[in-house]
């Protein structure tokens, strides 16, 4: 009995250790670069001789050619991610509520359409999206990226929230209707409070998706003042002699907010994103 348990535990470790290394080594690599001086960055050591925080100071003070707009760009990243998260959340919540709880006509079609969008890779849509934004005169406007990310995130968000909504007991709606609730009161006073975990999960999902987006940001935004940090980071690679240690310091800073958000909401993320994933 215990032998068997040990064996399965060992198998688990056999999988877990490579996965852990596979995730952690690049991160450690980034970290190593960011605390190294320019000349020792490529020394190949596991720990630099003279670790320094100087790279971070350079970044925060915007003291490098590629970093003149650092604060502006991180603000863009944040602004765009929060806006896309909020709009996705609003759209998906309303859609899920009306399809799942109000049984709106055509709900099935919307759900099928939402699923169907995933048969088309996002990269295929990049050019049409570029043209559309051009038509609306939104190119180089942060809203273009917000809208593009909402269209990419919304189908999945609707799908997940609809599944989660379906799990709320139907009697609650009936009880509320008998208690005298209008659909809007039902939404505000019963539905939203009960959906909080899923809503948090979907908001962070859309937020992180947008925060990490590169392709669309690169296509739709090109001005130094409108691009998010992801694109700004890409500019580092424009020259032959890239300042790797500063690039990595910036990248580390860029990676911290998602990690913090994920950590803060980890309870909701696991429960919320898998809620409705399987039929109970």
């Amino acid at each position, binding site marked *: 009995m215990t032998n068997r348990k040990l064996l399965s535990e060992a198998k688990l470790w056999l999988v877990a250790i490579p996965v852990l290394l596979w995730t952690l080594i690049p991160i450690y690599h980034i970290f190593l670069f960011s605390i190294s001086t320019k000349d020792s960055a490529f020394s190949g050591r596991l720990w630099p001789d003279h670790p320094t925080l100087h790279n971070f100071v350079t970044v925060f003070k915007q003291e490098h050619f590629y970093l003149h707009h650092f604060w502006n760009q991180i603000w863009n990243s944040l602004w765009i991610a929060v806006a896309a998260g909020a709009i996705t959340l609003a759209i998906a919540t309303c859609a899920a509520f009306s399809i799942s709880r109000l049984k709106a006509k055509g709900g099935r079609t919307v759900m099928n359409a939402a699923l169907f969008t995933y048969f088309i890779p996002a990269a295929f849509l990049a050019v049409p999206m570029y043209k559309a934004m051009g038509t609306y005169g939104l190119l180089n406007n942060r809203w273009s990226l917000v809208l593009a990310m909402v269209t990419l995130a919304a189908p999945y968000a609707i799908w997940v929230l609809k599944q989660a909504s379906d799990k709320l007991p139907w*009697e609650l709606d009936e*009880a509320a*209707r008998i208690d005298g609730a209008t659909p809007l009161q039902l939404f505000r006073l019963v539905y939203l409070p*009960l959906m909080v975990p899923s809503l948090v999960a979907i908001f962070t999902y859309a937020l992180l998706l947008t925060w990490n987006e590169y392709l669309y940001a690169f296509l739709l935004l090109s001005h130094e003042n409108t691009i998010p940090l992801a694109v700004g980071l890409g500019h580092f690679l424009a020259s032959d002699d890239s300042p790797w240690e500063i690039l990595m310091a910036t990248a580390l800073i860029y990676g911290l907010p998602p990690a913090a958000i994920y950590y803060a909401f980890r309870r909701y993320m696991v429960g919320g994103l898998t809620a409705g994933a399987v039929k109970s």
Partner: protein
Amino acid sequence: MATVVFDSIFKSFGSTKVLHGISLDIANGEFMVLVGPSGCGKSTLLRMLAGLEDIGGGTIAIDGRVVNDLDSKDRDIAMVFQSYALYPHMTVGENMGFSLRLRNDERKRIEDRVAHAARILNLEPYLKRYPRELSGGQRQRVAMGRAIVRDPKVFLFDEPLSNLDAKLRVAMRAEIKALHQRLKTTTVYVTHDQVEAMTMADRIAVMNDGRIEQLGRPLELYDRPANLFVAQFIGSPAMNVFDGTYRNGAVEALGARWPCSAKAHEGQPVKYGIRPVHFDFGSGVEAEVVVVEPMGAETELVVKIGGQSLTVATHGRSPAAPGDRISLAPNAKHAHLFDAASGARL
């Protein structure tokens, strides 16, 4: 307080017909129980009255006003669900006051009404708790509190006790009954448990397969069931029923003559029904005891007569043991005759 009138109500889900023309008048302040086996359509009927289900055909009127096209919230009814359907994110007090809050009542008035209901239901210590922190019986009472607070025209109950254990069910039965006697609000109560129906109802509508088989006071249904279905559904232990032939003022069945007071045509095939408590011991039909079930206050015997199992109940203890042969005298006054083909009472 109000009357409720169902007038030839029809309902189908897709091509399945569920209700076939139900008409039922419920008087002001009456406690009406709809009882019937699973799937007979009693919940559907109640939900139509609540406005949760479209009315397929016919009209429903509350207090003389046809409500077919009214929203649930405009019908002035309150409903207690089998699953209680308490709002999990609200405290007991908030749950009970929710309907008043939706009506934009004053805060003070809501608090007073909730406190009043909590006092009636002994829920005062729990007002600040959440539903998940309550026992099943307490949740049940909160669900009732939510209904009381509104002072509606009609209370609707859909199997409110079926999630409780047997002992609590008996206690809550008495509580609901007492509540009704105190508030005198017209009540429609759905159950599949005939004991609940018998003990609580002013009148019972026995439903089967989308029809009302019989409507009447509990003891009327018990004493004069209109047909075989009601006869076998009402009463515990259930009535003994077997086939026989009417001859010379009695029924010939199971190799014996069974006395009865009802009349049938000479030679007519009938069903003979007799409740377990309506046997006397003494001279009569010969029977063999198969099982003895002592319950303290009374004893149930399962006996075999002519190959058929019958139940006999006696007050007090019985000296009989399995294998004994006894002689039973069916009480003619309490024997029921039903037409063998239609099942209608003769």
